[in-house]
């Protein structure tokens, strides 16, 4: 339970590097890393459920999509909306949907929970895809990006890539710090206990259902924040944001990064996006680049097979190989990965 200095140093360096990155990056790089940071917020939301509470949610894209669509649908036609209310409302809309989905799906367990969350996200997908509300399969454009003003003076115009980069960075930092605090609090420890042995938690006096529902709702709100930022970045939303492929992709991000660690979500989002970009690049693969999903899939299979604890566990794995021992925590981490692996 003692704070691990190397973890804190890693996180500080990572955020510092992200803060300095725009100094050396071009516009493509800034846009790309903004996208990755949005993915990282999204991955953190799922890490709270899968890695910290042991709830394998396969419908996380629904909350992301609701946050994104809220940003577009609630912006008035005549001009930009204020970020002060649009962002909280976007995240809140996703959280409310998560509250409803969670209230029903948390009555099931294991594979049924996975299927029920998938079913709800598919319902949301079809609402966006097939009703006038969602603008159909073509999606909708966000013509006026929200502005952050103070006493009538604009502070931040999210139409500027650099401003959006900075704002996304601040959101990622806030979410990361908040979750880090949350997980060491009494609430977080109760979630860890529920993940380890829910029956025992009930036996000592925890009503576990409200705890799981609170975690699920919070996770939905964070995913909604990520979706909101994504819509503002692209200026465009379409129903694919709700798709189960995207729910699967974010699950792969946290497994790739290493379950049970917030850093894992961060690292996994970067690794996933970089791998995706690598296999899509025509300068490396030529004509084969259009089959990028094949390369990405194979590399994910390889990494799960070779890195049972994810990228986060890599230093520990090397240490074990050199010293020749495995500790109990590592073995338990591998179990968690095994449990998650069977899900999608």
């Amino acid at each position: 339970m003692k704070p691990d200095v190397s973890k804190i140093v890693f996180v500080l360096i990572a955020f510092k590097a992200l803060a300095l990155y725009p100094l050396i990056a071009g516009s493509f790089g800034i846009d790309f890393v903004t996208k990755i940071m949005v993915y990282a917020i999204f991955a953190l939301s799922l890490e709270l459920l899968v890695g910290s509470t042991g709830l394998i949610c396969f419908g996380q894209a629904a909350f992301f999509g609701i946050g994104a669509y809220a940003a577009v649908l609630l912006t008035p036609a005549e001009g930009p909306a204020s970020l002060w209310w649009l962002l909280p409302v976007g995240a809140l809309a996703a959280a409310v949907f998560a509250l409803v989905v969670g209230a029903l799906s948390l009555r099931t367990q294991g594979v049924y929970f996975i299927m029920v969350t998938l079913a709800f996200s598919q319902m949301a997908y079809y609402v966006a895809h097939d009703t006038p509300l969602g603008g159909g399969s073509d999606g909708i454009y966000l013509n006026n990006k929200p502005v952050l003003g103070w006493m009538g003076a604009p502070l931040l115009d999210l139409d500027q890539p650099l401003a959006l980069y900075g704002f996304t960075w601040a959101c990622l930092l806030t979410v990361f710090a908040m979750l880090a605090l949350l997980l060491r609090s009494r609430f977080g420890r109760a979630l860890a206990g529920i993940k380890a042995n829910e029956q025992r938690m009930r036996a000592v006096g925890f009503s576990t259902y409200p705890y799981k529902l609170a975690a699920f709702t919070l996770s939905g709100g964070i995913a909604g924040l990520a979706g909101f930022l994504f819509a503002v970045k692209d200026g465009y939303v379409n129903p694919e944001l709700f798709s189960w492929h995207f729910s699967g992709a974010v699950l792969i991000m946290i497994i790739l990064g290493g379950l049970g660690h917030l850093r894992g979500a961060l690292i996994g989002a970067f690794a996933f996006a970089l791998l995706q970009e690598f296999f899509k690049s025509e300068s490396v693969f030529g004509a084969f680049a259009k089959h990028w999903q094949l390369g990405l899939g194979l590399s994910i299979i390889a990494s799960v097979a070779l890195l049972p604890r994810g990228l986060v566990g890599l230093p520990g794995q090397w240490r074990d190989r050199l010293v020749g021992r495995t500790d109990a925590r590592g073995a338990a981490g591998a179990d968690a990965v095994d449990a998650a692996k069977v899900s999608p």
Partner: protein
Amino acid sequence: MSAEDVLLRGTELTRRWGGLVAVDRVSIAIARGSVHAVIGTNGAGKSTLINMLSGELPPSGGSVELLGQDVTAWTQARRARAGLGRSYQRNTIFPDFSVFENCRLAAQAQTQRPWAWWQSAQRCPASTAAARDAAGRAGLLALLDRTAGLLSHGQKRQLEIAMCLATAPQVLLLDEPLAGMGAEETERMLALLDQLRAGHAILLVEHDMDAVFRIADRITVMVNGAVIACDTPAAVRSSPAVQAAYLGEGEAAHG
């Protein structure tokens, strides 16, 4: 025993699984300051009974009273917060947590405060003090920082009891606390139960007959879901019905 001292009372508890009656109108009263053992062959319904008392299993009929209140409709968690602690036959500790954190998390159930998300759980004065106290009583003070999964079997059984004590219960339901223990560990556990007897009402389900007859103040004998005897150890030992059930002398039950 006076009526006020009965902390946990099950009345006419029945549990049916389809056509099978696992527990058939069993009444049991556990008083403060006593160890009440429930014995019986495998499948006699002991675990089903304990699960109905703890709230893990709703009874098909009958009622449960805890500290004078009818708690039949209460969830297990609510009963636990009201003073009902239980340990499990199989170890149900949190293997990745330290011994201390196992006890602290159990104690946290009494002061949950989940909304204080910015406060570190390690700084929670109520649960850290209760955890230390419980670990001390169960004889685990020297092992507080050990990862629970690395404890010996006997130490894990002690930790089960410590986690139970950390919730400050008045009633303890102990499901085979001696299972798989060596002679020395058994002695230590019996000494602990003897100490706990003073402030608690203890229900003990156990297969080790020597231990049961040494420690119990009262013994309830179950056969096929029904109680065939409930008396002091000496009276149970000499009961013809109990001998018949255990030794299979059919005529003794009628004679």
